[in-house]
């Protein structure tokens, strides 16, 4: 096993262990998403067709906001006791840390989506008219789009005084193309109104471009003072 992969796996395992013990991120995300589902289901009373039209936007915006909680947590624990400095003085490659953090966030948000999806289906009476299996690549590619940029911008805002505010300010504008693709793809699949292929390809392109950019720039972000 290469050193880079070994460090990535060790960091991922460490992060999962820390999250399992503290449950800081997953609890906050779950409660936040649950509140969104319940509040919106009381606020609107859509029929089945209206649900199909709006569910995409509702679901992904809820997950985007919930993901911010996890993204802030993932670096916050590296700031306690300045543990990040121990990584910075080591010969471990910066990208191994970035990939591990992004994978950890991806697992967390995917777990959240898996737990919340049944609730969304029940509360909004959702039935897909189009090919429902296409929701899986939309969810996976969309989630990666959110966490890869989120992990990067959370690291960037790490040393700012109000990083909880800074992260959404940086992340949300740059996530607009991804969010739009996720929302449109979900709407098309749920309503059966056309093909989601274009949006899925757009999401894939977005993921490739931003993953490459984040990997190229992360060393600079990590070593910045």
């Amino acid at each position, binding site marked *: 096993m290469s*050193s880079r992969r*070994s*460090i990535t796996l*060790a*960091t991922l395992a*460490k992060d999962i*262990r*820390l999250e399992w*013990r*503290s449950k800081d991120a997953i609890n906050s995300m779950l409660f936040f998403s649950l509140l969104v589902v319940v509040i919106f289901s009381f606020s609107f009373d859509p029929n089945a067709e209206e649900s199909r039209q709006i569910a995409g936007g509702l679901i992904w915006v809820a997950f985007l906001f919930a993901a911010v909680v996890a993204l802030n947590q993932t670096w916050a*624990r590296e700031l*306690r*006791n*300045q*543990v990040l*400095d*121990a*990584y*910075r*003085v*080591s*010969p*471990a490659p910066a990208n191994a840390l970035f990939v591990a953090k992004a994978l950890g966030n991806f697992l967390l948000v995917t777990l959240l989506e898996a737990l919340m999806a049944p609730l969304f289906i029940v509360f909004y009476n959702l039935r897909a008219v189009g090919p429902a299996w296409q929701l899986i690549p939309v969810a996976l590619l969309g989630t990666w789009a959110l966490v890869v940029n989120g992990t990067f911008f959370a690291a960037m805002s790490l040393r700012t005084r109000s990083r909880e505010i800074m992260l959404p300010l940086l992340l949300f504008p740059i996530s607009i193309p991804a969010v739009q693709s996720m929302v449109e793809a979900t709407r098309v699949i749920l309503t059966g109104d056309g093909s989601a292929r274009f949006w899925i390809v757009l999401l894939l392109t977005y993921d490739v471009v931003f993953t490459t950019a984040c990997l190229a720039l992360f060393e600079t972000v990590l*070593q910045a*003072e």
Partner: protein
Amino acid sequence: MTEAKISQSTAIIVVEGLIKQFGRFAALRGVDAEFDSGKFYVIVGDNGAGKTTLLRGLAGLAHPTRGSISILGKSPREACRELGYMAHPSLLYDEMSGMENLRYFARLYGIFGDERCGEVIRSVGLDPELARPVGQYSQGMRQRMSLARAILHDPQILLLDEPFSNVDVHSAWEMAALLGGMRDAGKTIFVVTHQAAVLKDVADEFVWMQAGKIVNRTEEWSPGGLAALDSPADDSAEGAQ
């Protein structure tokens, strides 16, 4: 003012014209020094003298605004395998045990298995079997575990920032003896501390800093080392701002 003593032969660290600014504030105002291999250096000075900034510069964590640092002929980043760094905070995860922490940091240096981790934990006088998370350690135990992390990859140069802070006198003497033993084994050790008296029997040289400059280097510890200097730091360094 005594000029900084500069050795000619076995210098493994060379600092030239080092200036470090944070915005308009210059924490280091032109540090020139050479440090020899296998020696024990204690960096002393008042708060704000630039001790920690110098140490972070040597560790590669603070990038010079001007000037250069050469460690074994390389930049601090390139020489990172030869550097062990212990900061004022523990640099450990509070939620994990000592062994879990070291097992993770060992992987960053390509060290696998628990043998080496257990060895360094024992070498600082702790029990590798201790399952308690580091957050529940006493301050003295945390400092020792932090030292264990710093020496995990057997570095040639140790950079230790306040290793005795909040540590009881007995533990401080024990740690000092441990560090003396490491120096005797050939390590080059830098300790930033306000408790230099603890190290007076093991240190080879005391490096006195004031206002971002090295103003004196002595082989003997004298409690009023800075006060003994006639004039304050060279004001010409103000130009660094």
